[in-house]
């Protein structure tokens, strides 16, 4: 168990001051604390300071806003806010589903989207959906400047991100669906030993946009818990372009699933063997294309 001191800046300006003051001291950020407190309980760190993001008043940091080109989601937005948001529910079902499958009511009410990303777990549910949506991360530096990074590049490894220690994740940007897209086939599949909580054996996020002729014009697929970081399965996405969702043969489905599975390098652990994870991934990938003709 690590003891710590929590410092609570009330504004972004104060946040910068606190970060600068902490300098080279051992510090971490705290958002919803659902990962952080469990992590700290398992180890002992000397003289730890936690910079509390939960009391920073800043509407961009804590809320969801529609922009011209897409949706801006503040890093402190809770998972429950994502679940309740009507635009997300309508435009990005994959994000809605990943959020509502995360943990439990009690956890969703405090856990944040920023915490899910910054924890950089290979099985982060909301993060997996965001990778499939080609989201970007807006990073805020102590000098007040920001930089944008694609979420794929943000993850360097399990629990490793591209953030410098004095930077915070400020907002997440999700690009709007294509103007020519008339239907989205979008969802989140989580296979686990339990339905809730973080036990995914493997997960798959997909967001497929089709035009009025039912031709696929853009596809985003990401896999979780199947390699050291969440992977965007680029070749599988490209493979789908120009195909018609309601009209895909068994052999094409197989070829597609093979394209997904090459991105997996799963491990064997107490939840499942590597072999099982690949098999499951193959099968759920195929199931993405099982769309009832109508």
């Amino acid at each position, binding site marked *: 168990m690590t003891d*710590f*001191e929590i*410092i609570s800046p009330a504004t972004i300006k104060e946040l910068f001051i606190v970060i600068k003051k902490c300098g080279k001291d051992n510090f971490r950020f705290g958002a919803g*604390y659902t990962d952080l407190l469990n992590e700290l309980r398992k180890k002992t760190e000397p003289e730890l300071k936690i910079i509390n993001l*939960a*009391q920073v008043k800043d509407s961009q940091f804590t809320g969801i806003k529609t922009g011209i080109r897409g949706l801006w989601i503040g890093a402190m937005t809770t998972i429950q806010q994502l679940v309740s948001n009507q635009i997300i529910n309508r435009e990005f079902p994959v994000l809605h589903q990943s959020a509502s499958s995360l943990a*439990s*009511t009690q956890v969703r009410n405090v856990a944040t989207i920023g915490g899910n990303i910054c924890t950089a777990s290979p099985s982060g549910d909301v993060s997996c959906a965001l990778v499939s949506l080609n989201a970007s991360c807006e990073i805020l530096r102590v000098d007040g400047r920001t930089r944008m990074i694609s979420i794929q590049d943000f993850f360097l490894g399990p629990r490793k991100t591209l953030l410098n220690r004095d930077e915070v994740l400020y907002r997440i940007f999700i690009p709007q669906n294509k103007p020519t897209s008339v239907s989205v086939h979008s969802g989140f599949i989580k296979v686990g030993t339990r339905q*809730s909580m973080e036990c995914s054996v493997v997960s798959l996020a997909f967001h497929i946009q089709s035009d009025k002729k039912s031709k696929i014009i853009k596809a985003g697929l990401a896999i979780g818990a199947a390699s050291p970081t969440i992977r965007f399965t680029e070749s599988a996405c490209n493979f789908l372009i120009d195909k018609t969702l309601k009209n895909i043969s068994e052999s094409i489905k197989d070829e597609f699933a093979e394209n997904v599975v090459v991105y997996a390098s799963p491990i064997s652990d107490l939840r499942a063997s590597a072999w099982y994870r690949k098999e499951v991934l193959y099968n759920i990938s195929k199931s993405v294309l099982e769309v009832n003709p109508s």
Partner: protein
Amino acid sequence: MMKGNRNRKEKQLVRISFSLNGQKVEAEIKSSTILLDLIRDVFSLKGTKGACREGECGSCTVLLNDVPVNSCLFPAINANGKNITTIEGLTKSDGSLDEVQEAIVQNGASQCGFCTSGVALAIKGLKYHYKKLNNSKKINAVLTPNRKDIKKWLEGNLCRCTGYVKIIDAAEKALINE
């Protein structure tokens, strides 16, 4: 050396004030204090349980501004200015039971009782949730949760005794009783 010690002492205590079961309270706490410990050890309200302390079981559930959260994973400092309801606050001032507690009793939804305060508050939270939904709606139809919604809502409450059916029965009863 001296300075280090003094610093360590100085940094520790923070004053917070919040509403606990409808009463305004204040406390001077170490900034690392967890809400569960504040409730049990400082305010001596022992109805809130801490079975896993990892966010898995829900026995420590309290309502934060009417929304259920796990108090074992919540820094007390972030309760500042908020309304906290524990199981002791559910019981009415004349000592009679809340409708949720009543439904739990009527349906035999509690055995050892260790999960029960968390379950009761989660169900109460679901009532508030639907109340809010219905108030914010433009259409007139009243939304009520079905059994599936109830099960989903109570995912974070583990019970080792009842097998859940009676808990869900109780929730259904309490929710219909609007």
